[in-house]
C-alpha cells in the first residue's frame, strides 16, 4: 500500500484543504484580459465557419461516386472491346497474326494467281488488236 494511504476509501471530494499552507498561498496566474478577447474572437471565427448541410455532403458524395463508377465502367468496356478484337489464341494480342489482319497485309503477299492470269490475258488482247 502506498505510504500515506489512509485505510478504507479515500475521500475524493474534500481534499482541497489538505494542501500544505505554502501551496495554498501560491497565487494562480490569472488569464490576461487580452487572451480572453483573442480566444473569444477565434471561437467566433470558428463558429462562423459554415458547415455544409448533410444533404449537400450526401449530394457531393453521390456525384463523386457516380463519376468513379462511370470511369470504371468505361474502362471495363474498353477492355472487353479490345478482348473481342484480339484473338483468344493470341494472348499477346499480336494483330498481325489475326486472320483478318493477315488477309489485309499486302506487303508480304504476291498478287493472287487469278489476277495475274487475267492481266496476262488483257495484255494479249491488247497486242492482238490491229493497230488503229
Amino acid at each position, binding site marked *: 500500500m*502506498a*505510504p*500515506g*494511504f*489512509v485505510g478504507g*476509501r*479515500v*475521500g*475524493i*471530494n474534500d*481534499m*482541497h484543504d*489538505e*494542501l*500544505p*499552507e*505554502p*501551496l495554498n*498561498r*501560491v*497565487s*494562480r*496566474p*490569472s*488569464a*490576461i484580459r487580452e*487572451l*480572453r478577447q*483573442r*480566444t*473569444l474572437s*477565434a*471561437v*467566433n471565427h*470558428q*463558429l462562423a465557419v459554415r458547415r455544409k448541410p448533410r444533404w449537400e455532403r450526401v449530394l457531393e458524395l453521390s456525384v463523386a461516386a457516380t463519376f468513379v463508377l462511370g470511369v470504371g465502367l468505361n474502362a471495363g468496356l474498353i477492355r472487353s472491346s479490345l478482348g473481342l478484337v484480339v484473338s483468344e489464341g493470341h494472348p499477346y494480342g499480336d494483330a498481325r497474326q489475326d486472320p483478318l489482319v493477315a488477309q489485309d497485309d499486302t506487303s508480304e503477299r504476291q498478287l493472287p494467281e487469278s489476277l495475274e492470269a487475267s492481266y496476262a490475258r488483257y495484255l494479249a488482247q491488247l497486242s492482238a488488236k490491229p493497230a488503229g
Partner: protein
Amino acid sequence: MSELADRLARGEPAAFAELYDACADRLYGWLVVHLRSAADAEDVVQETFVRLAGARKKLRRVENLNAYVFSIARNEAARLRKQTSRQQDLARPMSETAHDAALALEQVELVERALSRLNDEQREMVELKMYGNLTLREIAEVTGLPAGTVATRYRVALVKLKETLARDGCRE
C-alpha cells in the same frame, strides 16, 4: 451545466464566453505551471476553446464541462510539449504572471523545490488540484485514471510535499 452545454452545442457565442469566464483562469493558471511558459499556456487556452467550438455538437453529451475542457487542454498541452519540449524554470512564469505579490520569491522557490521532488504523475495530480482547482473526481476524468488511483497519488504527493516543506524549514 446541461443548459450551458445545449447552448454551446447550438454555437451561441455568449455561451462560449460564459464557459471561458467559468474556467479560463484556472485553466490558464494550471497550464502556465504545467508547460512552464506563459506564452504556450495562452496558445493552448486559445486552441482548446477553438477545438471546443469546432466540435460543439459533442458538448451536448458531456456531463462535466469543466473536466472536459481540462482534458482537451491536457491533450493540446501534450501535443505542444512534443513539438517544442521547452524546459523553463517553473519559478519564472509563476513570478512573472502572478498578480498577487503577497507571496515572496523565496516561498515560490520553496514550493518549486518541493514540487520538483515529486514524480511526474504525482506532480500532475498536485498541479491539477492546486492550479486547476479540480476535484479529484474531475482529475480522474481528465487523466482517464480511476478515482482511487488519483486519490492515492494525490495523497502520497501531499505527504512528500509536507515532508519536503518541513525539512526545508517551512511552517505550515
